[in-house]
């Protein structure tokens, strides 16, 4: 553990990722209690003002404060992505470790199921789901979360199978521990670092996908601010107010960049064997 912390200090990638991610989470949480202006407040007289002329980052076509919208958007984007990944990671991990415990026909079924789910891109499953229940946060969470199930199921299955071949597991079987107990005491703790790394990386992917869904109008319903919908709305004013298209995209890119760096950094730190 101490060695891990020491290694972290020497990893610029990890540190930059950590700083960006913490900053982002900080802004998102802050937006719950404070934004420069109420994000939904319209002010038509001051519409389409460039940055610094009105508010820090200017206003959109309804005169809403862009900085406030971006802050509130951070919370919406992060919370939706987090719930989606939590859903995918918990179902996927459960499927993975149970399959590793049982093997046999279950392994075949789970792997085939993964192939099938993986074949439908989240953007299409979100469209199908949206046709059902309309767009919205729930649709986005389910569509993204379901797509992440195979990612975590495959990862935990192969990692758990490796743990099952270890001597200490054989010993635990020898002294008569139940499979469930071995999974809880040995398998899960030993694959947890891989799961944490994957959660970080998939969070970045979830933010990207959520932005895409919101851009198509399948994500969070208005008036709740979202980065993707800000981009969709900015499309009408590309000539007049290009900054409206610039800022939300930068926010998305920065968030994904931070999470990816953090994930790669974590992988280096937690898995010293794989240092390239």
């Amino acid at each position, binding site marked *: 553990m101490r060695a891990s912390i020491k290694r972290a200090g020497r990893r610029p990638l990890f540190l930059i990722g950590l700083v960006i991610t913490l900053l982002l989470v900080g802004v998102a949480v802050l937006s719950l209690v404070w934004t420069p202006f109420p994000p939904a407040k319209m002010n038509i007289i001051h519409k389409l003002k460039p940055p610094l002329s009105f508010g820090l980052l200017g206003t959109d076509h309804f005169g809403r404060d862009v900085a406030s919208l971006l802050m509130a958007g951070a919370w919406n984007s992060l919370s939706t992505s987090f719930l989606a990944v939590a859903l995918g990671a918990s179902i996927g991990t459960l499927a993975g470790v149970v399959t590793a415990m049982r093997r046999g026909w279950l392994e075949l079924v789970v792997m085939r199921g993964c192939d099938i789910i993986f074949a439908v891109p989240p*953007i299409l499953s979100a469209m199908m789901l949206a046709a059902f229940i309309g767009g919205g946060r729930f649709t986005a969470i389910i569509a993204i979360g379901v797509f992440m199930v195979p990612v975590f199921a495959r990862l935990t299955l192969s990692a758990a199978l490796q743990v099952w071949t270890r001597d200490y597991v054989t010993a635990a079987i020898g002294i008569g521990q139940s499979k469930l107990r071995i999974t809880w005491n040995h398998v899960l703790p030993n694959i947890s670092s891989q799961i944490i790394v994957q959660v970080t990386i998939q969070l970045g992917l979830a933010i990207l996908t959520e932005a895409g869904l919101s851009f198509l109008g399948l994500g969070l319903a208005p008036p709740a601010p979202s980065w993707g919908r800000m981009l969709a709305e900015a499309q009408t004013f*590309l000539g007049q107010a290009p900054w409206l298209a610039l800022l939300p995209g930068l926010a998305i890119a*920065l968030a*994904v*960049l931070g999470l*990816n760096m953090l994930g790669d950094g974590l992988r280096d730190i937690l898995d010293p064997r794989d240092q390239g």
Partner: protein
Amino acid sequence: MISILIRRTLSLIVTLLIVSLLIFTVMDLLPGDPAAIMLGTSASPDTLAALQHSLGLDRPLPIRYLAWLAGVAQGDLGQSYTYGVPVAGLIAERLTVTLPLALMAVVLSVAVAVPLGVQAARRHNGPFDALAGLFSYVSIAVPAFWVGLLLIIAFSTMLGWLPAGGFPGWDAGLWQGLKALLLPAVALALPQAGVLTRVARAAVLDVMNEDFVRTALAKGLSEEAAVWRHAVPNALIPVVTMLGLQFTFLIAGAVLVENVFNLPGLGRLAFQALSQRDVIVMQDVVLFFSALVIVMNFLVDLAYLAIDPRLRAGAR
């Protein structure tokens, strides 16, 4: 090898069948009766029942699924409710936009990523390597549709060099068509290029450390020659593999980019079908995309088996 091939092919067919059943059932559960949508609100119950009957909507789900499947197998994907034309023709028409778009994006991303990855590996740990690393980090993080918006701002609204969207059709000439697809293809290619650069770099580094390359270098082969003779051909295998695995994301990107640039492609067709509740079109397009992804993964699997004999021994 033959028995593995047969087994894989059977499993491919089963997967395709299950996916098609899933898609059909989900779409069937949709609220909203297509016949009622076609006729509008003023239709009498009798005409509605007659249309439902002629569309086959009054038959039970398993029968409709089998009928649909039989049609799909014969290339008959049904009739679009809103366009009133066969869906197969509609998909074929839209493919003339989506396919060149995807191909251009793939070619562009490989053309950027392979040289970049090879150079980064040769100057391993140097400043060029760091720059290439930064490029892949940034390009993976940016959403393709946002890149599309930025390209429109730069090359259409500011410079006025390229169209901001729309597609003139291939009848307007090859150049006009390619011009309309250039910006969308660049937007679509960028995230792919980031992923592929990483893969190419890692693959070249791996190969350069192999014994046979060291032997070749020891026997006097120049580094330049070793890179081109050994490293690059070997690096192409993982690059192609990654292209196959990234296919899902290419499709998702295409759906978004087509909407940004207003291109009449398959992704836009699916999106329009959603807003018009054109169930059959949605069903067919989603099935088409999913089948593409499944077949792609199948081909990648086969390529692996063909390349690496060790996998053949353990394959099930």
